[in-house]
């Protein structure tokens, strides 16, 4: 199965702004730039002739004197296209949101502002949001390893560092959260919520009921029936790595077949 991508077109007449957007978008692997245009006619031709579905149109308002809002009329046959305005004009914001607009960013644009805007991809019409769009939303909304979250621990609100989480275990509609210092507490919510929020590079699901902090993994031994036994720093009892997740771990981290 091919990797889902967000096919994106950038319509912008300022070369430095195009270069900047291109650099910023490199941090979003699912964003696939399929075309760029700097003039109205060039953009109209591009939109009109592309056979590929356009998932995202990043649009400047003023294209060397022409108003790019007219371009949106050409998208009528492409209703799934989300539009992100990046412009120096402030006065078109209200008009812009009459369309399938996910955000209206006034220059100068920052990486954080762009990230926030991209997190809205697919949110304009949930029913038409593709899997790829939802993936981008998920990725953009992920917490960073250095982030802090506010948790209710035994009726006290406390800030927890994501990096301090050792492992998370599912208990029905609740999850047990264990910190590296041995503190354990229960939170309401499915383990899937944590899986979608925790940073992918630092946490990994090893079982339908367990997510572990990869930085604290001491070793993984081979178990029975292609399962694994994982030892985590600070925990005397090992964790079972289910067959499916063990296979994913081996592929992802390129473990050899010696296990």
């Amino acid at each position, binding site marked *: 199965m091919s990797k889902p991508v967000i096919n994106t077109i950038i319509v912008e007449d*300022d070369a*430095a702004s195009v*270069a900047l957007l291109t650099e910023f978008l490199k941090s979003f692997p699912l964003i696939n730039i399929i075309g760029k245009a700097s003039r109205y006619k060039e953009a109209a031709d591009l939109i009109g002739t592309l056979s590929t579905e356009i998932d995202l149109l990043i649009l400047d308002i003023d294209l060397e004197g022409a108003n790019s809002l007219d371009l949106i009329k050409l998208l009528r046959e492409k209703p799934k296209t989300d539009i992100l305005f990046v412009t120096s004009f402030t006065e078109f914001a209200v008009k812009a949101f009459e369309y399938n607009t996910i955000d209206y960013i006034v*220059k*100068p644009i*920052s990486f954080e502002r762009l990230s926030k805007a991209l997190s809205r991809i697919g949110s304009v019409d949930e029913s038409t949001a593709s899997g790829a769009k939802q993936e981008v939303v998920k990725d953009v909304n992920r917490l960073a390893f250095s982030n802090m979250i506010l948790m209710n621990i035994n009726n006290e609100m406390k800030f927890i560092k994501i990096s301090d989480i050792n492992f998370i275990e599912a208990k029905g509609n609740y999850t047990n959260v264990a910190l590296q210092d041995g503190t354990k507490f229960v939170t309401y919510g499915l383990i899937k919520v944590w899986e979608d929020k925790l940073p992918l590079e630092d946490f990994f699901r090893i079982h339908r009921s367990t997510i572990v902090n990869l930085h604290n993994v001491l070793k993984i031994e081979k178990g029975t029936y292609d399962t694994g036994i994982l030892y985590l720093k600070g925990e005397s009892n090992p964790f079972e790595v289910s067959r499916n997740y063990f296979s994913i771990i081996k592929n992802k981290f390129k473990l050899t077949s010696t296990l």
Partner: protein
Amino acid sequence: MSDQSVSKASIDYTLLSQFAHDTRGPFNGLLGFSELLIKQFDQLSAAQQLDYLSIINQQAIRSYVHTQTFIAWVKCISNNLKILPVTVDSGEFMAALLKLIQPEMSTKEIDLQTQIMAKTTTSDLSVLPLAIANLLNHCLKYATAGIQINLDLLNNEGKAQLIASCTNPETKAMVQPEVKRWLDSASQNPVIQLFYVVLNAHQATITMDDDERTFFKLIW
């Protein structure tokens, strides 16, 4: 507040909005690429670092042009703009002008050919190159990328004559209507208001229909 002052405030706001819009463009590259440099400096190759720095430099020049234009315009409407044309070396005049149009030239990969046939010119170096740069930058905005543009500074019976032309009549046909429209919109554009004030102070005249390759001819 009288009706007249309300009306004046409204006009000024339109002009200020135009400046605000023009300024956001270069600041986008200036802030964005400096942010990238700060965050990713160690991961970038030397070539990438140089690319980013070049973009920052170009955007800084564009920003400088906008800011200087704005300051001159504010001085102008408050009757504080002093334009003092003096005899200057033509090479120095051309260098001041080229510095201000360098980002647009570079972005459009223009092959710029200059010719200086006048030893000196009478000019206020702080505002005349700025006014001409704004006009040239507007021409470049509509010019096709990669073309050759000639900028000739001549001496015509004691007067300076600056001719901006291209080698391709199609480019001239594309650029001229846009530039004429721009020059006709002085009431909504402070850059053009300043342009005409500076031209008047130098007793300069501009023509645009000399031949099929000349963008404009400026005589002062």
